[in-house]
């Protein structure tokens, strides 16, 4: 019964995604369409960072680095490997194109996950601010390293990537990220992550292999950041300038503003922070000043973020809030 409902739900979600894309591409003007696509990519980033920062209680500010790895790995795959695998005329066939793009997204996610593992394993010895600055450092190292690889364009930017991303792909990606992280949170492993957030020493004492779980959270977070990167690189001009630590910080702000540990909060934060600078365009010169002032005022007025740890839900708030640890932060 429940399984049937899940299958139906999944099918319905896919149908909704395609319907939305069909409707949006015909009704929205290109500018709004673009903002919605970038919103959805940021939703993926914020959700995946929330897994590390909000749910596991670690503090990573190098997310843009993993996004860059995913973006460049998938782009290189599409440009160099796909014509060899599918033949150079593959773009004539819609199904082949879609399959190639799906593979490219997976390549982006997996390469990024491997990078996440290599970065996470040594970093997880560190805590708090030291962890934060090391993740920031790795993010910058990744960026500078990519900048020096000539095969992916280096400082010129990577040109010639066929545009493949549309609203359906990014909405599906955001929905998948949400579903995976939400189900993970409700699982045995998710409880272990929450236990680490609440009290790492107590969790360790109760037999939770904390390092293994922290690295796991980091790797999953990196995977989805890579997916977001892959969607990004097949949508717009690709240059390492898109992945400076300011991008990482932007994602951190989305997570904190929405509410650390709240998945719907991350979605809200990502949408708000992507849309806000666009909505403020009427005051073109002052808009970034208004934006930064709003950020300061919001943090002073509502330090736990907009949603705190609560979730928005269409259904009645059920056992979910009761089953989660309610230790005050």
């Amino acid at each position: 019964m429940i399984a049937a409902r899940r299958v139906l739900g999944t099918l319905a979600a896919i149908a909704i995604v395609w319907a939305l894309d069909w409707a949006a591409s015909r009704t929205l003007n290109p500018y709004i369409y673009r903002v919605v696509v970038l919103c959805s990519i940021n939703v993926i980033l914020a959700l995946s960072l929330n897994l590390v920062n909000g749910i596991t209680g670690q503090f990573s500010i190098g997310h843009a680095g993993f996004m860059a790895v995913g973006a460049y790995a998938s782009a290189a795959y599409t440009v160099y490997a796909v014509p060899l695998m599918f033949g150079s005329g593959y773009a004539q066939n819609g199904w082949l194109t879609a399959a190639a793009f799906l593979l490219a997204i997976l390549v982006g996610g997996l390469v990024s996950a491997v990078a996440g593992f290599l970065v996470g394993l040594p970093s997880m010895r560190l805590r708090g601010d030291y962890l934060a600055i090391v993740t920031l450092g790795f993010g910058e190292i990744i960026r500078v390293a990519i900048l020096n690889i000539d095969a992916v364009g280096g400082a010129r930017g990577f040109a010639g990537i066929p545009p493949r991303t549309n609203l359906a792909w990014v909405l599906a990606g955001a929905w998948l990220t949400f579903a995976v992280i939400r189900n993970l949170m409700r699982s045995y492993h998710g409880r272990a992550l929450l236990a680490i957030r609440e009290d790492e020493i107590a969790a360790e004492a109760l037999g939770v292999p904390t390092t293994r779980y922290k690295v796991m959270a980091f790797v999953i977070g990196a995977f989805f950041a890579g997916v977001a990167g892959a969607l990004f690189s097949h949508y717009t001009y690709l240059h390492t300038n898109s992945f400076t630590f300011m991008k990482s910080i932007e994602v951190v702000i989305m997570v904190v503003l929405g509410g650390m540990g709240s998945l719907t909060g991350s979605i809200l934060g990502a949408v708000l922070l992507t849309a806000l600078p666009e909505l403020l365009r009427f005051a073109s010169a002052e808009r970034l000043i208004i934006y930064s002032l709003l950020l300061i005022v919001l943090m002073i007025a509502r330090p736990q973020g907009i949603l705190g740890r609560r979730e928005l839900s269409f259904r009645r708030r059920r056992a979910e809030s009761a089953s989660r640890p309610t230790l005050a932060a």
Partner: protein
Amino acid sequence: MQEFFQQLANGVAWGSIYALIALGYTMVYGTLRLINFAHGDVYMVGAFAAYFLARALGVGTVASASPLMAALVLLGSMAICAGLGVLIEFFAYRPVRKSSRITALITAIGVSLLLENAGILIFGPDPKFFPQVIAPRTIRLAEGVLVTNHQIMVVVVSVILMIALTLFIQRTRTGKAMRAVAFHRDAASLMGIPVDRIITITFAIGSALAAAAGFLVGLTNPKIEPLMGIMPGIKAFVAAVLGGIGSIPGAMIGGLLMGISEYMVVGYISSTYRDAIAFVILIVVLLIRPAGLLGRNVTEKV
């Protein structure tokens, strides 16, 4: 070998600037446990304050340059930034002091963005040419090793400021209070130390040091723009962590180490790797000594 000494000299001059900025990070971190992301932008404001002061005083042409005027410009921009630091602390950081540290961090990022964008709006986005408040001269240290008098000034002024800071913190009553607040804020408060005032003083001193760094950078690299504080800010923070955050000698050593290694990379490998070397060193050091070079290893109590 002369290449090595040349890069060493450049690195020491540039590292002194990192060290001055890193001092502000480490002092604020010591008292508030806050990564003051806006610090790099205070350094930018320092450079611009010096720029406008010099123009207001009519210094700027080589003819009117004099050490007295330069000192006046330096002290003026330090005073302006000390005031700015106090304002930032009062309006942005004090209200979130009781909140979680991540909230405070985001607030700091907000202040940083505010300063950058206000800078773009007020000063304009294009680079400005810093007036030559002291006539440039090239000095030959040894065979093939050339430094400018500006570079020497950078090092001398930094060393003087660092000595003054160390004396202040070790020898005066206020300095003692600062150390007490850094050691344990609540206990210091119970001993009758006015914690709020000490934190204000910490911000004032840290920001003044950043302004000095801004002035000195204007001398050696005379192109200033509103986003100039981002990279040096982040690297100075890395320098502070490298030396052991909260430790004042650590910040000096970290800054110098960072400046020297950057110039060695520029000289021997490639300038495109310059921005990465700071982080590579940081990660290597932290993996060996997780609390930084001079940091105390605090054992966690359960």
